[in-house]
């Protein structure tokens, strides 16, 4: 983008993808690369932590540090990596099943602790990698092989995040790469936990929430409304909007102390990862037991 940029898209080139042609995940991958390049971050400065699922494969397709953990378990690993090395830009990534199903508890608690990490959820409203079961965000009544009478009332990630006092709550759409990339940039720059739930069509298993379905409905909050992301109550009301119109953009944003700065028993002035042991301290501790 910038003529003098050191960091180009090329340095982020990763391995061959295993996604279906036409999958919304490609848009997310592009948006992420663009955001990192725009921010002029170098690959070694970034750590991606991912779960298991189609979304969880993303870090394999971009050249950064990466820790591809278990289904649903991205957030605790990502948070801890940030705690011990706050110089890293830590980005967690996973699917809707991964993050809101298996990983629901970590989601709640990472938000309230306000770790300074960015969390991308590829929300295709379906379990992709396991071939099409309902996910926690599947629309009510959605029929799959495990929900033959329809899926139950979905999780509303935006509402949950606002109720959990998350400090950055946004929704993106993989079909609007420009906008999404801006959200990811803003999320990375935000000091605190940034949730970006990304509407991502699964062309193979979700025949309801297709590219066209989303495209008809999504609108940009910053352009087509006078939404104030600082107000928690109106943000909550906005979060309930889902149907004919679906807002994308930042629903809620606030400044509040991040875990690493305020609640750790140590002050993270220097990354822990660089420190060498201090036997002197232990010696005096031993004396306390005498």
């Amino acid at each position, binding site marked *: 983008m910038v003529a003098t940029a050191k960091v180009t898209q090329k340095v982020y080139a990763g391995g061959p993808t295993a996604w279906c042609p036409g999958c919304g995940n490609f848009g997310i991958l592009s948006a992420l690369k663009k955001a990192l390049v725009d921010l002029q971050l170098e690959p070694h400065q970034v750590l991606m932590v991912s779960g298991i699922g189609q979304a969880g494969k993303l870090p394999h397709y971009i050249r950064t*540090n990466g820790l591809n*953990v278990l289904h649903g378990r991205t957030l605790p690993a990502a948070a801890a990596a940030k705690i011990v090395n706050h110089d890293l830009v830590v980005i967690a990534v996973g699917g809707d099943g991964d993050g809101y199903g298996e990983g629901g508890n970590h989601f709640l608690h990472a938000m309230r602790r306000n770790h300074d990490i960015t969390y991308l959820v590829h929300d295709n409203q379906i379990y992709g990698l396991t071939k099409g079961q309902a996910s926690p965000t599947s629309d009510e009544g959605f029929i799959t092989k495990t929900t033959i009478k329809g899926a139950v009332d979905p999780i509303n990630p935006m509402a949950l995040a606002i109720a959990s006092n998350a400090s950055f709550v946004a929704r993106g759409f993989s079909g609007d790469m420009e906008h999404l990339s801006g959200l990811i940039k803003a999320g990375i720059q935000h000091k605190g936990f940034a949730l970006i739930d990304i509407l991502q069509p699964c062309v193979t298993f979700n025949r309801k929430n297709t590219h066209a379905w989303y495209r008809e409905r999504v609108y940009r909050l910053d352009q087509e409304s006078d939404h104030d992301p600082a107000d928690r109550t109106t943000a909550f009301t906005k979060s309930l909007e889902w149907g004919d119109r679906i807002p994308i953009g930042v629903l809620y944003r606030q400044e509040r102390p991040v875990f690493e700065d305020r609640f750790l028993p140590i002050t993270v002035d220097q990354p822990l990862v660089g420190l060498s042991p201090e036997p002197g301290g*232990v010696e005096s501790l031993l004396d306390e037991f005498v």
Partner: protein
Amino acid sequence: MALDINLMVGGEAGQGVQSIGFILAKLAARNGYEVFADQDYESRIRGGHNFFRVRICASDVGTLTEKVDLLIALNKDSVLLHSQEMRADGMMIYDNDAVKDLASEGNLLGIPLQTLAKEKAGNKIMSNTVALGAVAYLIALDLDRLKELLLERFGPGETGEKNTIAAQAGFDHAREHFEMTARRVPAGSNGRKMLLNGNEAIVLGALAAGCRFMAGYPMTPVTPILEGMTENATRMKVATLQAEDEIAAMLMAIGASFAGVRAMTATSGGGFNLMVEGLGLAGMTETPLVIVEGQRPGPATGLPTRTEQGDLLFLLHAAHGEFPRVLFAPSTVEENFWLTVKAFNLAEKYQIPVFILTDHHMATSYWTAPKFDLSQVVIDHGRIYSPGVPVDGDYRRHLLSEDGISPRAFPGTKGIVVFTAGDEHDEHGHIIEDAGMRAAMVEKRLRKTDLVRQEIAAPKTYGPEKADITLLGWGSTFGAIREAVDRLCHEGMNVNCCHFAEIWPFPVGAVEEVLAKGNRKYMVENNATGQMAQLLRAQTCIRVDGCILKYDGRPISPRFIVDQLKKEVGAVW
């Protein structure tokens, strides 16, 4: 027989049983004696019945014994429940303000604890300290040292001062009314040994090893490890965190370790269940990790405040799939410290998870120990990547090296990226489907098992080198078994013992050597199925002649072993 005095404090939860007991233990330690102390308590915060036992010896001690020399009964129940456990010449102190229907006569020493506390120190609440003073007189512990301890504990201000007054009152009352017990503690040296429990020794070991991250979730008996690390976090620069659950705690430890620091977690069996998935992830991603598991009686919630050795085989086989691990079960308070240090080293050297398997008894018992010699602490981070080797830009986290160990590097290193995955992966850490690479990675990981086995110490032996009977055991039972060996030898039997603290990878060769002699073997375990006996058989085909098992949630005592062994060999003897 050498000095061996056994005190017991009994009362209900909330009455300060633990507090009195601990001060007595500390007082004896300050007097230069060896001390072993442990608490028996229920899973409740107030009420019920608790007791704390303190054993004071002239030489090394690692277990409680059965008979009580001096009982401090803080309530009626304690009088009723523990009178049978008294030695014939034992004494009992009780509060005759509270227990009215008991005559203070003979060895029953009623003291108006509350009245004295009120009168002398101005507060009924200090009746426990009055009792402490009386005890100090009865077994001849140094009153000044007691006062010193009270001031350390309650501060030099008014509270501390009043407590010393209360202690003096108890001391004086006892001197006026009673005779010292036969088993008094002769004025000891000022050895100034440490007095600490297994949990504390692990905290110290972790700090000495340079642990920089701990996440955990409260669970008896190891909650104090998280609390202890947190207490020292600021000055020792350790990030600690109470997670939302054990799953998170485990994954956090993995994330921190991958990012480049020494990391640990601690839990009990119930919580460890939830860490099993993360354990496999550590195995697959070759992430160093130290996991403390403090056993308590299972299955499920079981008896939360009791002890058992029921999780050995579970930990050795936990998580689906196959990968190397190390398991230590410390058998003394020193081993809690040193094996923790070793655990961190092996975890990093071999890039594997290492267990410290302790139990309620080991975690909460107080022992005396000489101050750990920190100059002996060696830190070994294992193989770390140096830029350029292999060439920049081609760093391979899972390099297929000859010994299975690949150099580690950490995210943030300029010029390279570090990648790993819980999926099977290639050398760069990226997902594969290929059969050949899969097999190569399996072999690479498993190669480390035999390598790390060479670091495992042989089991400890104790007693005569040649014996008719060998008692075997592992972990927290060492103190009891050792003492049983002494007693049995004393009684004329020819018995020794072989005891495991470094259990996995099983030191097959060393064990076969130690157990080669044709003597009879009895396995002593605090469980119902003889798990170590099974492991021994699986690893060496050595069958023991019998098992001495206890599974009622209480620790094993020397007497129990002696009695059971005699039953086992009955016909022979």
